[in-house]
């Protein structure tokens, strides 16, 4: 017995180290796993995130902080788009003790039917919506009421507000219900304006001090648009449309020296505060940059400038106007279907002779003609910082749709389509000594302490300063001698050109209807603004009779707004070495 016990003890002693060794190995393995688990050496990032989430779920919560959209200002820092709050008001009827009294109070405040409200409050529902959107003022009154009436639920809703109403609506664009910017500056600068939503971990432990949960603010944007000039342009445009019986129209005002768009007005337009009530979605699009049209005779300015630049003509050159010319099998006639005899280059513009322009383009040849038109930016977008710009259409030799007759027609603005902005940008190059500036509507982006200011940039120099001066003088002659004073402002020298374009249709040009336009700049010797007027389908047919007087009225008010003195006063100032310039360049 004792021997057996000794054997067992010996066996135990022999097995014990094995067991201990085994347990040691297992322990080391477990310890190793614990260490590796703790430090998560080999875990994939998503597993780590999951485990961290699991760990934190009891002690903290994730809050999504909304971003506050930046404000849009005009160049004088008047707000064009701001953020406001509206409120959604609901109630929990099962928590209301006196439905009759509460219904009376809420119905009066929210402008609801009292009986309907009472019926809603008499149910045992956990939640009933009373008003989907109420103003901040009413929201605050409901919030006061909430202190006495349990069960009222009031929820803030961020909303974009446009305090100037319809003013510059198609430039500014709008913010949709999804808080995304659409069209205009709101759409183009969505990323800069919107700010960033961010997730913030907030501790649930009461002993932890709260973190400052400040919203991320998007950048504020200062436009080049001048609110007063925009208002002036819009009111003149509406008057012009009403008086001329036009269907629609556009007025653009630009600083030719730096490309600042000072006003961009189109009619009809919309109110961005109620964009959702707009039936015709085309109203949301800015016609000044997206609507292509055949410009008509204003294009003759570019034809003459191109030919002068290429040395094809000189201002003194003449040709014999026989009233018509045939190019590529197409007969081109003057607007009055008359022959004008011996005519010089200035008179081509003054009398707006199609035959003259076609003769010049023919002398240039397609290669020089189209390379110059390209240099003026015809057929390509200007690159303005707005959503939805169209490129225009210009067929060139080699294109399927181009024929030799295009060369003649294009010279006086037929068979070529431009946007109003393209046309004004090209003509502004003449006002700016031949340098064509990049048009833009944003002047500054202010993001906290960082202020980015847009610097004027040139799209190119299609013509020399000398050519620009010659063409300017020709355009001055147009206003002085060719329009019966329709575009003249007493005391001021103005350069300009009218345009009357037929409207193309699938079966040729529509008879009896036109698009009339006028492009000009002032003062001609030191241009501060270049202006485009365009009216669609007026009851009068000619640009000189319909568009030129609109330009005159606008220019008369602009010289006051911009404090541009008459030529004689400026000349007196210039003698002293002084310059008048209201617009900072």
């Amino acid at each position, binding site marked *: 017995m004792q021997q057996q016990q000794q054997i067992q003890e010996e066996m135990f002693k022999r097995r014990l180290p094995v067991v201990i060794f085994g347990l040691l190995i297992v322990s080391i393995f477990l310890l190793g796993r614990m260490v590796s688990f703790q430090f998560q050496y080999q875990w994939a990032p998503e597993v780590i995130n999951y485990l961290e989430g699991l760990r934190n779920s009891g002690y903290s919560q994730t809050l999504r902080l909304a971003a506050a959209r930046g404000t849009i200002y005009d160049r004088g820092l008047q*707000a064009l788009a*701001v953020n*406001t*709050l509206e409120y959604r008001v609901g109630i929990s009827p099962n928590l209301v003790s006196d439905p009759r009294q509460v219904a009376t109070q809420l119905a009066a405040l929210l402008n609801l039917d009292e009986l309907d409200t009472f019926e809603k409050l008499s149910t045992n529902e956990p939640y009933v919506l009373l008003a989907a959107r109420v103003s901040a003022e009413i929201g605050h009154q409901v919030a006061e009421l909430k202190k006495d009436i349990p069960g009222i639920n009031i929820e803030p809703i961020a909303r974009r507000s446009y305090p*100037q109403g319809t003013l510059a609506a198609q430039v500014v664009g709008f913010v949709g219900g999804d808080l995304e910017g659409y069209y205009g500056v709101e759409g183009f600068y969505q990323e800069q304006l919107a700010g960033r939503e961010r997730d913030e971990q907030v501790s649930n432990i009461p002993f932890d001090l709260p973190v400052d949960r400040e919203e991320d603010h998007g950048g504020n944007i200062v436009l080049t648009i001048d*609110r007063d000039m925009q208002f002036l342009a819009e009111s003149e445009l509406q008057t012009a449309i009403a008086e001329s019986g036009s269907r629609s129209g556009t007025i653009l005002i630009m600083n030719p020296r730096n490309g600042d768009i000072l006003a961009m007005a189109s009619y009809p337009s919309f109110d961005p505060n109620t964009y959702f009530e707009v039936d015709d979605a085309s109203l949301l699009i800015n016609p000044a940059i997206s609507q292509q049209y055949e410009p008509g005779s204003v294009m003759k300015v570019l034809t003459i400038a191109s030919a002068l630049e290429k040395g094809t003509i000189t201002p003194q050159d003449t040709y014999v106007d026989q009233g018509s010319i045939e190019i590529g099998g197409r007969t081109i006639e003057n607007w009055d279907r008359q022959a004008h005899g011996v005519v010089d280059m200035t008179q081509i513009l003054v009398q707006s002779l199609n035959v003259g322009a076609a003769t010049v383009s023919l002398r240039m040849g397609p290669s020089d003609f189209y390379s110059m038109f390209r240099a003026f930016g015809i057929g390509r977008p200007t690159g303005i910082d707005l959503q939805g710009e169209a490129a225009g259409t210009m067929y060139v030799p080699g294109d399927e749709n181009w024929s030799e007759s295009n060369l003649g027609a294009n010279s006086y603005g037929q068979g070529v389509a431009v946007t109003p902005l393209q046309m004004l940008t090209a003509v502004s190059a003449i006002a700016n000594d031949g340098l064509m500036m990049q048009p833009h509507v944003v002047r500054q982006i202010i993001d906290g302490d960082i202020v980015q200011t847009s610097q004027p940039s040139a799209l190119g120099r299609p013509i020399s300063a000398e050519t620009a001066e010659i063409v300017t003088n020709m355009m001055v002659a147009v206003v002085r001698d060719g329009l019966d004073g329709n575009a003249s402002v*007493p005391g001021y020298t103005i350069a300009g050109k009218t345009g009357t374009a037929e409207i193309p249709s699938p079966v040729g040009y529509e008879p009896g209807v036109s698009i009339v336009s006028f492009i000009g700049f002032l003062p001609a010797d030191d241009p501060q603004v270049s202006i485009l007027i365009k009216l669609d389908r007026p009851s009068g047919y000619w640009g000189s009779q319909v568009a030129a007087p609109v330009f005159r009225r606008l220019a008369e008010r602009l010289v006051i707004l911009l404090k541009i003195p008459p030529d004689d006063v400026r000349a007196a100032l210039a003698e*002293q070495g002084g310059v008048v310039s209201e617009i900072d360049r």
Partner: protein
Amino acid sequence: MALTNWFEHTFKRRPWRTQRQAIALVTLSFFVAIIIGALYLAQAANVSTTGRQLEDLILQRNQLEQSNEQIRGEIARLQSVPRLRDRARELGFVDATVGSIEYLPVLGYNPDRDERPAIVIQQPEADVPVYDETFLGWLQQQWDAFTSQQPTSSEGQP
């Protein structure tokens, strides 16, 4: 030495005294724990209260910012061109015309003249006393001031 012996005698030879000592230590530990707990609770309550106050202040700030934004919008609406124009007309203002404006050239005045920086004449800098006071120096100063206030034996006596 005698005191040591007395301690050994008292605490080693008397088991009932050891029990009392244990009870005393436990009680003491208990009270110390209570005091520490109370201090911790007071501190935690203080932090929590401050946290709540901060939460309220953050909320209040956010509401004020929203309110400011609302007011800015309202101001912009009140300053809109059509409203200002109507108000000006109500007050009897009329649109200016080209003919109604008189420009008065001011001789010698050029609004766009080259900016010439003003010439700054360097003024000799006044000597600024150097601050080199030490603690011992200050102490010495105080002492000197104190001793100078001490009346001499002849002062204050007829």
